[in-house]
Structures are given as C-alpha cells and as structure tokens.
C-alpha cells in the first residue's frame, strides 16, 4: 500500500499552502534581526501576500483532491473549506494588527512569523487524516499561539494569560495524546478510517470499554481547544489578557481548526459508538451555551464578555456535532465561517476603541460611539446583530441551520434550550448597542482615533462577509453540504 516513502510532486502540490506559509514565516525569522525598525510594516504586507497566496493555493489544489504523504494528509472539500477559513482568519487578524502593534510599540517580525506558524499548524490539523498528524498540527498551532498570547512582554496580564494558556493547554493536550495512545494500542493504527473499521469489526475483544475511554480522553483535549464546557475555564482569562487581535485570532482560527478535527475524529473514527458519546456532547453543548451566556450577562469588561460569548457559540457548534449527520456537519462548517467574520469584526472594533495600553475596555466605554464615529458603530452593530442571530446576517443562518439539523436528528430539547439561550444572549449584545446609540459620549469615545486603512479593511471585510452569508447563504452552504460527506 505504501509503495514509496518519497512523496510525488502531486503530493507536494497538495501541501502547497502550508509550504508557502512555512517558507515565508521562516524568512521572517531570519530577516527580523537584519531589517531595521523602519521596515516594520513590511512583515504585515508580506503576511497578507503569503496568506492570499496560500488561500489561492488551497483553492487551486482542490482541483485535484486526494491523499498525500502515505495517506497522512487528505485534501478534500472539508479540508479545503477549513483551510480557507483559517487562512481567511489569518488575513483578518493581520489587518487590525498594523495599528495595534504600532500603538503598543511592539516588534512586528516575530509576531507575524508566529501568526503564520500557528496558521500552518491549523492547516495541517484540518487536512490531517490520522491522529499523529492531527496531534502535530495541534501542537504547531498551540505553541505559536501560547507565545502570541503573551506577546506584550511588559504587560503583566498578558504574561499571566500566556502562562495559564500554556499550562492548561499542555495539560489538555496530554489527555488527547493518551487517547491517541490507547487507540493505537487497541487498533494498531492511527488512521481514522482504519480505526473505524477496527471498531466496527468487533475484533477488539474485551477492549470496547477502552474505546469509550479513549474517546473521552480525546474529548477532553478537543473540548479544551474549542473552549466547550466543562473545559472552558481558561478562555475568559486568556482572552482578556492577550493582545486584542490575538484574542480575536484565538477565538476564530484555532477554534475552527479544532472543530474541524473534532468533527473528523468523532464522525469518522468514533462514528460507530455515536450513541455512546452523543449524550456527552449534548450535555457539553448545553453547559457551554448556558455557562457562556449567563456568565456574559454580568461582565463589564468587553473582552471577557466576548470570551464568554465565544464559549456560548462553541456550545451552538457542539449542538451541530450532537446531531451526528451530514446536515449537522454542514451547519457547523457554515457556522464557523460566519462566526469567524462576526467575531473578528467585533474584536477589531474593540482593538480600535481600547486605545494605547488597552485602557478602554469597559462596556460603558462604548457610550456615544454612534455619534462620534457612526461608520464604526454601524459596522459593530452588524457584528452584534449577527452574533445575536438576526436575519440578513450570517449568524442567523448559522443558528438556523444548526438548530434545524438538531431537529432533524430529533434533538428537540436541546433545540428548545439552545433557542432560549440565544434569547438570553441577545441581552448582553443589545446592551452594547444601547450604549453606542443612546448614551452621551464618554472619555473613550472622545479620544477615539480616526480609522487607518488597515483597520477600515479589517472592519469592512468581515461586515461584508457577514452580510453576504446572511443574504446568500446558499453559496457557502452548498459547498459545505457537498463537503460534509467526506467526514464519514
């Protein structure tokens, strides 16, 4: 079966997006000490070029889908979809970072190199077809993001966030690795399809109980990465402490990739024991939604609020996983794309408003933004309405498809509770809208800087994306629906 260990050129081309990003990121590392501070924007420009190139490559290689490197990677519709999502998240993260890094007077070379490495890891995760590759991708992505979380070295909160993220993250990854080891011990393979066949074949003797344990261990690791309850506990502290563009990135990129492998592992390898893990996902989904939404109600810090909201949104996607169907997979894919747009957009506004040293992070600091900078306020309104799930936005169709998939799979109670939850969520998003439009401008709004071109793009692009997904959901959903069959 594995005729040659030397990859063919077709296989190398399927790996092209990762290659582009790795080469550029490595070049950044080498050039960083050589280039002076005058060229600090060069890294951002080249990051965007590299990411655009990688996205084009990801789309291009889909013309010839197939496996690479002895079946360790699999380029299919599902992988391509998530590759485009995580690379797109990368672009939307770089755009507001120009202004942010200037404002905080931080180094730019390392920052962009780390960002690209993290995206490489996520691309490997979403294309991986077996557990070791998944693990490698997960680690590449995670280690780079640990450093990014603490990128502002002199900021105490950032240091604390990075350390917490690192310790708890490693802890959770260890669980995942134990799960992988158990699976390999029992089935003799780490390939997802082979594992599935071994479970179905029933040749595991007295082992089935350990299959369940292995699934649980992996659930812990992945649950941590997607910040699903009860492993969500790190998210508020880390999002709050991390630089705002990094928090935006963490809430969208690594999370999308983690959901991709979550879907792949549980719907491919563990599909035969689906009835066993479905109740767990059910409980985790409900707990994430409830914990996230109710805790967000009392938050006064906007970054913490968005962190809890991202926990709640992870809960919605877990509902789609609990549906265990192609429709559910497609809904989860759609949701991650919509969520990436609206959440990064919201974080970009926060990054813009917070001012040097991130002083203005209270919900009250949004007071009067509608009068001071109507454009920014209007864009933030689009993101918030989408996060609530108001029609004509991507968030609406995301929720709609997820709960429809849940209903199709007869998860009636989960749907009812989830919908009640999104009603609760409307409160804390609307509070920000009320602040923006119905209160007199406070100190933060009066000190707000004009928008830079990078920031403008960072706000307008996600808003356009949110609206396009809300008005023409068919474009993305069609592709997601066709791709969801690969996860089986």
């Amino acid at each position, binding site marked *: 079966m594995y005729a040659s260990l030397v990859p063919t050129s077709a296989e190398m081309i399927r790996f092209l997006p990762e290659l582009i990003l790795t080469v550029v990121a490595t070049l950044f590392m080498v050039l960083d000490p050589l280039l002076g501070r005058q060229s600090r924007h060069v890294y951002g420009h080249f990051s965007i070029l590299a990411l655009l190139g990688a996205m084009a490559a990801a789309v291009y290689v889909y013309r010839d889908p197939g496996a690479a490197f002895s079946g360790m990677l699999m380029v299919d519709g599902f992988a391509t979809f998530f590759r485009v999502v995580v690379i797109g998240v990368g672009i939307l993260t770089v755009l507001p970072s120009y202004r942010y890094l200037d404002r905080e007077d931080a180094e730019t070379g390392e920052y962009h190199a780390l960002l690209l490495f993290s995206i490489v890891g996520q691309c490997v995760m979403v294309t991986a077809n077996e557990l070791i590759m998944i693990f490698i991708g997960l680690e590449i992505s995670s280690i780079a993001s640990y450093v990014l979380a603490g990128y502002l070295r002199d900021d105490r909160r950032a240091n604390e966030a990075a*350390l*917490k993220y690192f310790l708890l993250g490693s802890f959770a990854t260890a669980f995942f690795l134990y799960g992988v080891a158990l699976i390999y011990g029992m089935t003799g393979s780490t390939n997802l399809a082979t594992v599935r066949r071994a479970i179905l074949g029933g040749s595991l003797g007295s082992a*089935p109980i350990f299959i369940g344990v292995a699934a*649980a*261990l992996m659930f812990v690791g992945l649950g941590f990465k997607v910040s699903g309850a009860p492993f969500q506990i790190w998210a508020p502290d880390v999002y709050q402490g991390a630089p705002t563009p990094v928090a935006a990135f963490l809430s969208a990129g690594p999370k999308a990739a983690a959901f991709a492998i979550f879907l792949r592992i549980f719907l491919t390898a563990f599909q035969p024991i689906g009835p066993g893990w479905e109740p*767990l996902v059910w409980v985790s989904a409900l707990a994430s939604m409830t914990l996230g939404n109710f805790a967000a109600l009392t938050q006064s810090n906007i970054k913490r609020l968005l962190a809890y909201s991202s926990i709640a949104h992870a809960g919605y996607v877990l509902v789609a996983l609990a549906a265990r169907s192609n429709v559910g997979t497609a809904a989860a894919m759609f949701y991650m794309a919509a969520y990436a747009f609206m959440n990064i957009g919201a974080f970009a506004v926060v990054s813009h408003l917070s001012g040097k040293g991130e002083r203005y992070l209270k919900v009250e600091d949004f007071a009067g933004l509608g009068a001071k900078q109507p454009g920014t306020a209007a864009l933030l309104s689009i993101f918030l309405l989408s996060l609530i799930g108001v029609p004509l936005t991507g968030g609406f169709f995301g929720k709609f498809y997820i709960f*429809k998939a849940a209903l199709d799979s007869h998860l009636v109670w989960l749907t009812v509770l989830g919908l009640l939850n999104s009603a609760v969520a409307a409160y804390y998003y609307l509070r920000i809208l009320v602040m923006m439009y119905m209160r007199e401008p406070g100190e933060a709004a009066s000190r707000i800087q004009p928008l830079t071109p990078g920031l403008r793009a960072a706000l307008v692009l996600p808003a356009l994306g949110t609206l396009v997904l809300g008005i023409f959901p068919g474009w993305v959903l069609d592709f997601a629906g066709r791709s969801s069959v690969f996860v089986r």
Partner: protein
Amino acid sequence: MQLWLIPAFPLAGFLINGLLGRRASKGFINAVAIGSVLLSFAWVLKTIMGLGDVSSRYVEHYFTWIQSGALQVNFDFAVDRLTVVMLLVVTGVGALIHIYSVGYMGHEGGYYRFFAYLNLFMFFMLTLVLAANYLVLFVGWEGVGLCSYLLIGFYFLRQSATNAGNKAFIVNRIGDFGFSLAIFLVFLNFGTLDFGGVFANVPGKPETLLNTIGLLLLVGACGKSAQIPLYVWLPDAMEGPTPVSALIHAATMVTAGVYMVARSNVIYIHAPVAQEAVALIGLATAFFSATIGLLQNDIKKIFAYSTVSQLGYMFVGAGVGAFSAGIYHLVTHAFFKALLFLGSGSVIHALSGEQDVRRMGGLAKKIPWTFWTMLCAAVAIAGVPPFSGFYSKDMILAAAYQRAPWIYWVGAITAGLTAFYVFRAIFLAFFGAYRGHEHPHESPPVMILPLAALAFLSLAGGFLFDVPQFLERLFPPIEESHDVTLVAVSVAIGLAGIGLAALFYVVKPSLPDSLAASFSGVYKLIYNKYFVDEIYDAAVVKPVVNGSRSLLWKGVDVGLIDAGVNGLGWSARGIGGILRLLQSGSIRSYATWVVFGSVVLMVAMAMAGGVR
C-alpha cells in the same frame, strides 16, 4: 446572456454614488447615475437581440439561494415576452426620468442621495421583473417598496413628507402580508415557488385553493398598485420629488401589482372568483378615484388620483381575461402619465414650487414647450384616436363588453371623467389669465428633452408598439370584436369630457361655482375624497393607536412582559454572579476543574459509550 448585468449596473451606480457621492461633483454623480441606467438599457436591447423573437421562456440559473428541507429556492432570472416589455418600459422610461432629474433636482440638497436611491430603485425593479420565482420577485417587491418610502420621505425635514412615507409603509404592510400568505400557500401546495413549476401544475388543483391564492395575491397587488381599499397611500406619496412621482408612483413600481397578476395569469384563469374580484376592484377603483380627481386643486394630486384610476383600468383588463390589453395599457400609461408628471414638475419648477392649479393660468405662452408636450399626454390619456391611450383603453373596454356590458359602460363613463379632469387641469394651468405671483420661466433643455421624447411616445406609442400581438402566445386569446359602435361611443364620451372641461373652465368659468353651490352635498363629499382618510382614521388608526397605547403598551408590555422579563433578567444575572465565582483566576483550581470534568467524562463514556 448574463441577465444579471441588467440590474447590476444600477446597483453599481447606487454603490458608487452612495459611498463616494457626498464628496463628488455633480457631473460625476450624473454620469454614474444616468450612465448606469443607460448601460442597463443597452444590455436589455442586446439581450433581446440575442434572444431573437423570445418565443419561449429563457432561464438563467445563478445559485441555490435557500435550501432547507423540502424548500429549495434558486436565485434565477428568466426572460419571456412579458419580461421584455417590462424591461424596456422600466429602463427606457427610467433613463428619461433620470435625465430629467438632473435639471429638476439641480437646486436641491441631498443630490447624491437622491440619485443613489433612484439607482437602487432601478436595481430592485429590474430584479422584480426578471425574477423566475415568487421569492426573488418578493425581494424586488419589498426593495422597490423600501426605495419608495425613502424617496417619499426625501424631504425628511418636512413633517408631512415623513408622515406620507410612514403611511405608504404601513398600508403596504397589509398588502405584503397577503402576498406572503399567498407565497406560503403556493409553496405548501405546489412544493416549489418557481413560476414554471407552479404554473405547470395549476390545472387539476382544487378551485377553492386557487381562488384563495388568487385573492391573497390580489391583496398584495392592491397594496402595491394602490387599489381600493389600500389606495390611500398613493395620493400622499406625492410629497416626494416630482421625478419620483413620475418614475415610481406612475410609470413603474405601482404597476408591479398589475405585472404580478399578469404573471400569475394561469392561476387566475383557473380561479374564476379571484379573477372576478380583480375586475370588480379594478373597476370600482377606476371609477371612484376618477370622481375624486374631478375636484382636486393640487396638480400632482389630480394626476395621482388619475394614476390610481388608470391602474384600476389595467386591473379591469386582467380581470376580464384581457391580460395583454392590461399590459398594453401599462405601457402606454407609463408614457403619458410619466409625461404628465414630468410636465407638471416643469410647471412647478417654472413657478418656483407652486402646485395649486387655481394660482396658475395662461402658462401656455410662457412655457410653450411644457404646454405642448403636456397637451400630447392629455389627448393620449383622454383616449382621442389615434393616440396611444386610445388603443389600449379601447381594447380593455372591448374585452370588458364581451364579459359584461355594464363593465363597459362604467369604464366608458370613467373615460369621460378622465378626459374631463385632465383637461380641467390643462385649461386651468395653461389658459385664461395668469393668477399667480411668480415669474414663470421655461425649464432647461435637459428637462425639455425627456418631455419631448415622452410626448412622441404618448402620441405614437400605440401603433408603434403592438404589445397585444407581441404577447399573443403568452396569454389566453381575447375574443376579437370589431364593434365600431362601441369604439365610437367611448370616443364620443371622451370628447364630451374634453368639451365639458372647455365649457366649464374656458368658455364660462363661473359655471363650476354655481354647480358646486347647487349640488353642495355631492360636491363636499367628492371634494373631501369621500372622507375615506377620515373613516380609516376613525375606524382603524385611532383604535389601533389607542389600543396599543393603553392596552398593549401600558397594560401588557409594562405590566406583564416587562415585569416578567425584569424578573427573569434579575434571576439570570443572579446565576451569572454565581458562575463568576467559579472563575477564581487561580490556575490550580482551573486544573482541578479540568481533572474533575475528565473523570466524569471518562466514567460516563466507559459506562455508556464502550459497552454496546
């Protein structure tokens, strides 16, 4: 064929002017706004050339718009002969009105905003007529509505304009409610919203169902096309700038209801009750609004009631089965009514804003171009042969006679009333002595040119474009009748209307007042538009407002919902406060939490998951 380009040009114009117009020069705004509509017109022509004689329906599929369970809605455009007619009217007349607006709006504030809205309107209107299914049509339908409200309230600092915008919005909600119910019913019973799929399956469906759908569609059409009982918004809509009245509230948008009924002709043919209702509502509207038009003094209001009346004519055509005659009248009406509005815009422009015909007079010599072009429109709408209105009106009346002679007679009398009020306006404005104070001045060439073009079309459009023959294969055939007496009678009634108007307002100007005095009861009733606005206000608006205020707002909302929600809210925040305690910030407690969670998970999985 790239049909999507047809609406895409105005959309691009809207985006460019909407985003950049604030700082752009007028020349740039004009070029973008007019250029986009002209490009769209050119693309329509190119499409028609490419399609040859358009003998069958040509569909272009773009993407699956909504896919949910059994519901699949495609974003498709389609062209058949009916669409061709509509496309030509919308882009052709639309382009002329855009050009005219350059002159008319030249001194107004919000210049770029006006043209951006106008282009947005064109985009939605073209989407509406190109739609290949009910939902895409509905998108265009709501979109033109939106632009209509925005443009009615264009002078938003004027309270009456804002109120008129609100009125149009609210009245149209009633119509749209009916339309959306019709769409739901169509989907439930046909499983699709695509025109082709629906109409192919109409034969064989129960008649009650088709009647219900037809009546609900009619409710929607009544809202958009201002028919009884939902016509009240259109006269108020004249608060908008005059080019808007010409484009949206005379030539294009208000005819969307007629278009929709003609598009759904297969349903109506199999739904006799609904079709009868179309004819009766059309006839009643045509007659009553014509009588209201007799005594109006605001020149735009006269033509507004005339529009309502003429739309009623088109509904009569569709209702008696002469769909192609209805569409024919839609086309000729677009020419002469747009011209009447643009002409009155030119008069208003000349008099620096004066709209009351009692303070005009003798303008024929002062603004001759406006006078002569408007006279062309007047003879066309009065049904004087061989001008355009004669052909289409005559065809509707002939078909009505086949169905029921009394419809013909009411229609013919309405034609007489029409001739009377239009010439009343012409005589009052252009003949006699000047009664105003301003110094009238002729409009610039950029306004006169579109007037001249429309005047030509009003005169010659009838025999230049044989719309019924073009649409022959699309609709069931009309029984041909060549009864010369019928034609002669209706023409005679029309000429009598003109003659009476001349007698009243040129020969013996004292006659109207003495007549008004001797028939004061009828006069007051008609002068006050049958008190319909007052009746609606007392019967619908006041009870709804009061009920909402005292019962729904103070009672249900404050007492029940707010109290309940606040209670829930406080308890929710209470839960949130407890959850906050979990977040101690200590990393050791976090790790404990993770371990605790994983132990629970593993036990659960070992118990439930592994054991099959």
